[in-house]
């Protein structure tokens, strides 16, 4: 039982301004402005550049990447909302673009921004959603009641959702996506804007839902969330998958595991060479006054680092040690921090 997801060489090129759901920053602009005057298109934006993924039935899979990496566009294509430029996306046995109605029966979607029906109350939103999927009246009333309780929305269930706080809207959006009990649940940055307590409630609900054999694909730029929830993760950047595996595998793939970030008064090749010779150091990357050290230890290295910096004739301005984490992994693969 359970339904999987797969994509093959998925590409999406926007030739008109992309929808807000796809974010903005981080797209690679392939400007054609300087080219032959006959060219009509003044720009195209490559949002996805050949994404191939296989998500197993009953898995919680995370897409991790910065804003504009292509996470939302991937979800858009998998949920019939964005037309792929080329490549193939399948949910279970169905080709998403060619068999949209069959696909839509299998999926539930929570978008990045709450897109609730503002003309209705919370209860009505869930009831009508059930009706769109042809669920019988008694059954949808039962499910609505259960979801309102589970998501702690019962007290204000009969209010118009206009007056809801951001967190309440987000909870209701997730409840709505579960009314028809989809085999595959898409969550685009589900915990953005939630307080820590609600975030934990949400994680619990996601795990519960997954325990019933449902497949879950979530996107996040929160490393902790990916680490806590996902069985496997793909890291995407600039529309490409740059790493894939379980959180443990991915963390183990960073050379050394520990990352020591230094700020020095004056960077130099000599300094890099000295640092590279230190015991346990596997890789050193320097850019101006910033130096990143990958090593199999953290704290015990500091003394040796201080000495090495001193011997190179400069001073140490700042040291930061981080333990093996997905954050470091991302930094290692892209040269950028996730929050940049």
């Amino acid at each position, binding site marked *: 039982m359970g339904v999987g997801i797969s994509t093959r060489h998925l590409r999406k090129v*926007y030739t008109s301004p*992309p*929808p*807000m*759901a*796809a974010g903005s920053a981080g797209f690679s602009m392939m400007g054609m402005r300087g080219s032959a005057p006959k060219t009509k298109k003044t720009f195209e934006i490559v949002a996805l550049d050949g994404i191939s993924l296989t998500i197993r039935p009953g898995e919680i899979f995370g897409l991790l990447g910065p804003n504009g990496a292509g996470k939302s566009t991937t979800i*858009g294509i998998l*949920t*019939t*909302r*964005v*037309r792929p430029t080329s490549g193939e996306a399948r949910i279970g046995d169905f080709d998403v673009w060619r068999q*949209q*109605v069959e696909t*839509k*029966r299998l*999926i539930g*979607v929570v*978008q990045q*921004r*709450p*897109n*609730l*029906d*503002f*003309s*209705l109350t919370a209860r*009505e*939103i869930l009831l*009508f*959603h059930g*009706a*769109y*999927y*042809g669920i019988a009246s008694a059954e949808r009333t039962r499910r609505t009641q259960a979801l309102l309780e589970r998501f702690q929305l019962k007290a204000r269930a009969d209010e118009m959702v206009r007056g809801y706080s951001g967190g309440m809207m987000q909870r209701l959006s997730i409840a*709505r996506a579960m009314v028809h009990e989809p085999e595959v649940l898409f969550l685009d940055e589900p915990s953005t804007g939630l307080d820590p307590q609600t975030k934990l409630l949400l994680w619990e609900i996601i795990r519960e839902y997954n325990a019933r054999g449902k497949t879950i694909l979530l996107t996040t730029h929160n490393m902790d969330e990916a680490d806590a929830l996902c069985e496997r993760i793909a890291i995407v950047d600039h529309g490409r998958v740059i790493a894939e595996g379980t959180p443990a595998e991915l963390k183990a793939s960073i050379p050394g595991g520990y990352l020591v970030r230094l700020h020095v008064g004056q960077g130099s090749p000599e300094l890099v060479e000295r640092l590279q010779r230190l015991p346990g150091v596997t890789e050193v990357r320097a850019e101006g006054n910033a130096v990143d050290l990958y090593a199999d230890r953290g704290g015990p290295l500091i003394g040796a680092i201080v000495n090495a910096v001193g011997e190179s004739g400069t001073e140490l301005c700042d040291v930061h040690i981080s333990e093996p984490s997905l954050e470091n992994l991302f930094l290692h693969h892209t040269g950028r921090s996730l929050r940049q």
Partner: protein
Amino acid sequence: MNAKTFFAMLARDAHVARRNIWALLTQTMLQPLLFTFVFGRVMTGSGMMPASYKGMLAPGIMGMSMVMTGIQAVSMPLIAEFQFTREIEDRLLAPMRIEWLAVEKILAGVVQALIAGGVVMGAAWLVLGAGVGLNFDRPLLFGAVMLLVALFSAAGGLMLGCSVGQTQIGLMFSLVLAPMIFFGCVYYPWSALNNFPILQKMVLLNPLVYASEGLRGTLAPQYPHISTAAVAGALVGFDALLIVGGLKKFYGKAVS
């Protein structure tokens, strides 16, 4: 098409309309009734207009109300639902081809336009008092014209709703709807433009002309009007054009 989904969406629109019933009725009725009262009652009562003007005016007002109601009933929610918050997304994700959602919007608009036409006709009758001189000798023809008018207004609403952004609503009223009303042969028959031959030709591009003239031709044929066959042909043409165009626009707006 998936009938359960389709009718659930229709039920949703009916539910929302019922909740806003007073606002909707005021929006539909107030302006037409004020026009009817001032032009049909005050002007004729004071002798500035002949009493026969009443019967000329009533079908025009009715056509205008239907057209404005249909356009607004479809376009205004669409503009809101397609903006930034994408409220429409839950229905786009429902298990039905998304074109059917546009068809559902048109159907909901047709129903509202027909109701508006009926309500305004009844109210205008009351306001105008004696001597309106409408006749219902040809109910089938009248029904057919009503339906064609309601259809083009709802399809036009779809087209406008998918072309206009939230910030351009004011512009839509002053640039599209206002000229449409004033050059829509609502307050005068098309033949009144005989002395303005260029204008007379140009207003033929305005679908409201056929709504007013068509209703005039079926309800008050004693006044000059464009032949009903020509009106029906033009309305069918506008209906087809706006439905096809509206569906295309809707699809383009829904899928990126």
